[in-house]
């Protein structure tokens, strides 16, 4: 059995292995993902982002439990930062999800960003597809808590949740300029602390300035995730949002947009490989010298090299 077949037969180790293969950008990973394609598209993908320590993992834990109570299976992908200096990482999101470990309806995978900016890892979208094909009804993606650059989450999730907490004060104004627009649901977690109402109001005010999703008004929900308080309200809004996407036709648009982006990535990466394979190294080296000697300019030299490739492709 190959890995794709193992995933489809419900083999957990197969799922884990395939995700590793995707992470190491192994050529076979794309072949296996290709085989899974027709089995994907059933999961509701939920993205969770927000500043470090705001309670994202604690919320994921509570949401997963609530979904399990509704008889839904849950896949979780939790991303933590990789050190740019050593390439190492400590992936600690599971600390908040210990109770979920032995539930056969849950699969959790931790990932390091491995140099990818934007709060996710390059392998995250592949891992989502594997879990989707594996049959997870809900897939939750937790980004790193970077504060600013996690907007990438929107192109991977159907429903994007932003977790804030009281006491960040002025930071909200400055950090969140680009983040506000991507939130479908806002959570003010740690509302056992002082200032939750103030934070809610600030977000409300900022959303008022930004009415770019006329048919969906992003709700702002106060939670105490550690005690599970407010989680039911979040679940309700998640379901409402999914329904809204389906009813409004947004869902189809999102899927198509996602496919366009993926196709673009695939074309570029495959083209890159083709170019590497067929470019004439000798000619390239000669051209470098010529450019140094000012006999030719880089633009014209590139045209010359590409002309070769065009000829080869049309052969």
């Amino acid at each position, binding site marked *: 059995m190959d890995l794709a077949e193992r995933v489809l037969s419900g083999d957990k180790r197969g799922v884990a292995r395939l995700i590793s293969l995707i992470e190491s950008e192994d050529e076979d990973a794309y072949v296996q993902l290709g085989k899974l394609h027709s089995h994907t598209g059933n999961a509701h993908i939920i993205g969770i982002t927000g500043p470090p320590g705001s309670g994202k993992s604690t919320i994921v834990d509570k949401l997963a439990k609530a979904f399990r109570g509704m008889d839904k299976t849950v896949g979780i992908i939790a991303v933590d930062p990789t050190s740019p200096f050593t390439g190492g*990482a400590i992936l600690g999101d599971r600390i908040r999800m*210990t109770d979920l470990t*032995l539930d056969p309806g849950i699969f959790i995978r931790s990932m390091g960003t491995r140099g990818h900016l934007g709060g996710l890892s390059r392998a995250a979208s592949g891992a989502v597809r594997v879990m989707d094909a594996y049959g997870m009804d809900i897939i939750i993606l937790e980004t790193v808590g970077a504060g600013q650059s996690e907007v990438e989450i929107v192109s991977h999730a159907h429903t994007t949740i932003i977790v804030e907490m009281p006491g960040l004060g002025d930071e909200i104004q400055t950090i969140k300029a680009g983040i506000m627009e991507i939130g479908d649901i806002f959570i003010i977690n740690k509302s056992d602390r002082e200032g939750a109402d103030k934070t809610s109001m600030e977000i409300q005010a900022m959303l008022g300035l930004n009415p770019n999703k006329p048919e969906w008004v992003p709700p702002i929900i106060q939670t105490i995730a550690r005690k599970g308080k407010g989680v039911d309200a979040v679940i309700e809004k998640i379901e409402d949002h999914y329904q809204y996407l389906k009813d409004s036709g947004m869902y189809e648009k999102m899927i198509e947009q996602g496919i366009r982006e993926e196709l673009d990535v695939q074309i570029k990466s495959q083209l890159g490989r083709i170019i590497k394979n067929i470019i004439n190294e000798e000619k390239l080296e000669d051209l470098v010298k010529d450019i140094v000697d000012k006999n030719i300019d880089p633009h014209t030299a590139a045209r010359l090299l590409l002309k070769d490739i065009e000829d080869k492709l049309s052969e």
Partner: protein
Amino acid sequence: MSERKTRILIAKPGLDGHDRGAKIVARALRDAGFEVIYTGLHQTPEQIVETAIQEDVDAIGLSCLSGAHMTLFPKVTRLLKERGIDDILVTGGGIVPEEDIPALKEAGIDKVFGPGTPLQDIIDYHNDKCGTGK
């Protein structure tokens, strides 16, 4: 093509409430370029094995200070075997008396790092057995 990065689960089975040592080891391994999955206190052997599977780790480092290592460590290796897994390196650390080591090795613990083991030894061992994280 990039290579596989070595992933190590650092887990604390048992009831003792100290994870300072485990965290220090986790950080040292991270700084050596490994991807470390850290799951916190009070993990049962069942949870440790399940986590190791989902995270597809190359190695598990068990840390136990409560004195229950003679039951908890072998339980982890037994559960791994029951699930048909023989390619994950298992090491132990914490307060393990010298005389317990042979029995633990017998039970499938590949290496025991006693108190005071230099961090570099732990890093070297994993580099050697699993390949470097880089």
